């Protein structure tokens, strides 16, 4: 659902983060089982999983804080268990619920970490204060900051040594919506500065707007990992078959079985992809509007649900625009259009649905 300019992800280069066959056991329990995924330079990678799935454990291995039982993790080509010192130089890690020193000012806090990193140039603290937009707070005591401001301060801290890779464990977990949006925008800024970002969450909406790739982990196993678009295509190949028989990939149709929506016999342009649903709120006669849309090109089905129409269609955002234009042309007042689910939510449901495991923790 990105309306932004496509970011440049150099997928053919060496991955910025490589996690390979990672196993971790606590007592008799395998907390991580063969976790494998790559994050490429320039990506924002969403690491999604329910509580207790093993996100923090994986992240702590990446951050050189936990020795894995087996498997290997490389950051920027360096094995984290072999050379943690070098990894620490390229990594900015924000733990979940990180603490701060309360009785120092924002500037002192950052100066301390700059000193600890051995950064000599004096402008760095100013620069990160500027970048994270907390300059006006610089002489406030850290104790007096709000949660959102503290989170910004943490981000400022991990930027001090100009790391290539940022790993954020649930960065938005206790933030209000406004602070979340601000953090999100900040992350996008950082991505445009060329940082690779991995952030974990169990809240999809937190990730859906900014991630370029996702990995879904459940009970210690990776369910799926890769760029959102690619995964979406894969799932479309498996499940979209009924609505839009894919060209030349008929083999996957054997995996069908979960979709209950009746398929319309509309003519299809198969390369347009999977069935999507858009919710359309219109003024006036809903039934008439539904009738008007029914059977249109690319429209699969139209249902009246409550005060809005649920329109199943294939195609991209142009199809939605076309649909809106058509309704307006036919004299219906369109007051709202929204996707039933974000792409990420669909992926998540499909991925976790097919594994047969429960999604909850």
């Amino acid at each position, binding site marked *: 659902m990105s309306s932004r300019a496509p970011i440049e992800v150099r*997928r*053919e280069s060496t991955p910025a983060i490589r996690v*390979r*066959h990672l*196993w971790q*056991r606590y007592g008799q329990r*395998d907390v991580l*089982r*063969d*976790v*494998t*995924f*790559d994050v490429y330079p320039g990506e924002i990678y969403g690491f999604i999983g329910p509580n207790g799935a093993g996100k923090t454990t994986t992240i702590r291995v990446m*951050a*050189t*804080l936990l*020795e894995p*039982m*087996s*498997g*290997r993790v490389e950051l920027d080509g360096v094995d984290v*268990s*072999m*050379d*943690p*010192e070098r990894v*620490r*130089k390229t*990594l900015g*890690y924000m*733990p979940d*619920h*990180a*603490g*701060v*020193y309360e*009785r*120092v000012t924002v500037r*002192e806090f950052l100066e*301390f*970490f700059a*000193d*600890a*990193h*051995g950064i000599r140039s004096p402008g760095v603290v100013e620069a990160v204060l500027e970048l994270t937009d907390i300059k006006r707070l610089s002489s406030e*005591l850290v104790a007096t900051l709000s949660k959102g401001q503290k989170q910004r301060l943490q981000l400022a*801290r991990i930027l001090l040594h100009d790391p290539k890779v940022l790993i954020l464990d649930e960065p938005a977990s206790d933030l209000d919506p406004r602070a979340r949006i601000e953090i999100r925008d900040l992350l996008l800024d950082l991505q445009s500065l060329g940082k690779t970002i991995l952030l974990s969450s169990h809240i999809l909406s937190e990730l859906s707007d900014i991630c370029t790739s996702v990995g879904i982990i459940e009970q210690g*196993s*990776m*369910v*799926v*990992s*890769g*760029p959102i678009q*690619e*995964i979406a295509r*894969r799932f479309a190949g498996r499940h979209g078959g009924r609505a839009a028989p894919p060209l030349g990939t008929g083999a996957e149709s054997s995996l069908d079985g979960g979709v209950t929506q009746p398929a319309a016999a509309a003519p299809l342009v198969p390369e347009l992809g999977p069935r999507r649903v858009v919710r359309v709120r219109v003024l006036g006669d809903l039934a008439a509007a539904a009738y008007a849309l029914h059977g249109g090109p690319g429209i699969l089905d139209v249902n009246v649900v409550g005060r809005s129409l649920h329109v199943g269609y294939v195609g991209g955002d142009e199809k939605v625009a076309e649909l809106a234009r058509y309704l307006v042309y036919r004299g219906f007042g369109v007051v709202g259009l929204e996707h039933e689910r974000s792409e990420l939510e669909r992926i998540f449901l499909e*991925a976790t649905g*097919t*594994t047969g495991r429960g999604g909850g923790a």
Partner: protein
Amino acid sequence: MCAYLAELRDEPNPLWLREMRQAARVQLTPIALAALTILMTLFIGGIGGMMAAFKLSPASIGGVLFQTFFTLAYFIVAVVGPALGANTIASEREGRTWEVVLLTGMRPATIARGKFASAYTSIAIYIVALAPVGALPFIFGGVTPTEVVVAFLVLFVFALLSVAFGLALSARMQSLRGAIVVTLLAAFPLASGLFAVVGPMASTLAHRVWPGVQEGTPFWYPVAWGVAPFGREFLLFLVAIPLAVVGLPAWFLFEVTLANLSSITEDRSFGLKRWHLVAAPVTLALLLVLSGYVDSLAPSELHALVSFGFVAYAVFVIYLFATEVFGPSRRVLVDLAGRGFLRQRLAPGLAPTRRMLRLTLTLPLILVTLGWMLATPSSGLPTTRAGAHFVPTVELTQIALVGVFLAAYVEFLIGLTTFLRVRSAGGSGVRPLLILALFVTAVGPWIVGAVAGLLSSRSDPGVVVAAPSPVFLLLVTHDALVTGGALSSPLVACPLVFALLYAAGGVWLGRRATERCRAAIDQHTALLADADRRLAEEDAALERDRATNVAPHADMALRAEVDAPTEAPPSPESVADSIADVDVPPEA
């Protein structure tokens, strides 16, 4: 040294700087300091007034006030120092800032120094605040300026140890409250013991050298500075020995702190091994020197004193290294390549550690015994003491017996510990079992004998049940030898038999353990090599895909789902897992 000071001035430790800034923001500190000073002044003044009311001479009042003040100050430092030290690292752990500090790439040594400096600065401020009160005894006289200055120096040095003690303990603890409670529980008895037992004992010795030093006073050291004439003994007892007695523990605590701050894949035992290589000869030298100042003991008794003293140190060191790792981690192996001879010898691992302990603990005991036997006249007139006759051959036999037994006993403890370590996965049970073994061998036989009613008389043959205990030689065998017991008599032969059993058992257990350990390391290395090979194959496959122009990621996207986790990795009895927790033993 100057360069180091200059560095301190130009680039203060960031941790210290920050803690000082934080401390400066607490309004309570000056108030607490003022309150402490006032309380102490009132207390000391009150005692002085009371004594004056009893018409004591001002000089003796001054002396008593001096002792009172420094005793109080000693206990304040003994409590506040460890608490401040414990506070530093544990508060970062509890405040969830610790990992973040670690990830800045600061070396554990830098962190330890910064933390030490901040805690030490705080306690130094306390001591300085007390300084005016410490000068009060001057008003009454009877105390020289040297004494007061030296006493304050002692206080500063003691503060160093007490802060380091708290730091070393807190480096392991996760919670702040736990760290402070444990530290105080350990520090207070330790400080009281030093004050009530070690201090007076040392004063007895000092009194013998310089009669001007009062016998039985714990705080005799500053007084000795006033009365002792400069000379060999001054340098030995007032400079060299105090330096060793303070320096070794301080260094030890620093190394323990570093070990506890380092990650499990680092070589955590090297620092402590280096310390031991210095501490062992110094301890031995100290025992030998002190034995030279104990008169009225026969040669065999002096030998026993030195040997048992060294065995006490040996037990401490064996306990210290009881949780040594099986072998070096991948990372340490890479790091070790190309290092010097000594560094390679002191590599982490059970086998090298066992070798080091045998060379530095068992061997010195044998050498000391041989030397002692050479130095003891084998012929000549029998000496007498307290009615008993010491025949030189009896002395020589006794020295040899004690030396053989103790060397065998230490060898047994080394072998047993190595064996226990190999048997326990995480190394957690080794130390309790070691203590249990010590108890069973040293004290157990006596309890059994007492319960069976066999100890009523030392000449009772039933007393041999206690022969496994090292003190049997002192309490029973010696008497038996003196009263003409031959080597074949049970009271002499039994300890010898047990010595041989201990030696054989120790060697056998140690051998078995190191063999098992080697097998475990080989297995682990094979697994690592296998993992390496598989990862390399995967890389090669990926490279091929790339060459045939398939987007690698597209292929990988559902990988995890398609290949269900294939096989579980080996059980975690790996080298990395068995890296030891080196920690401070509860009772040093």
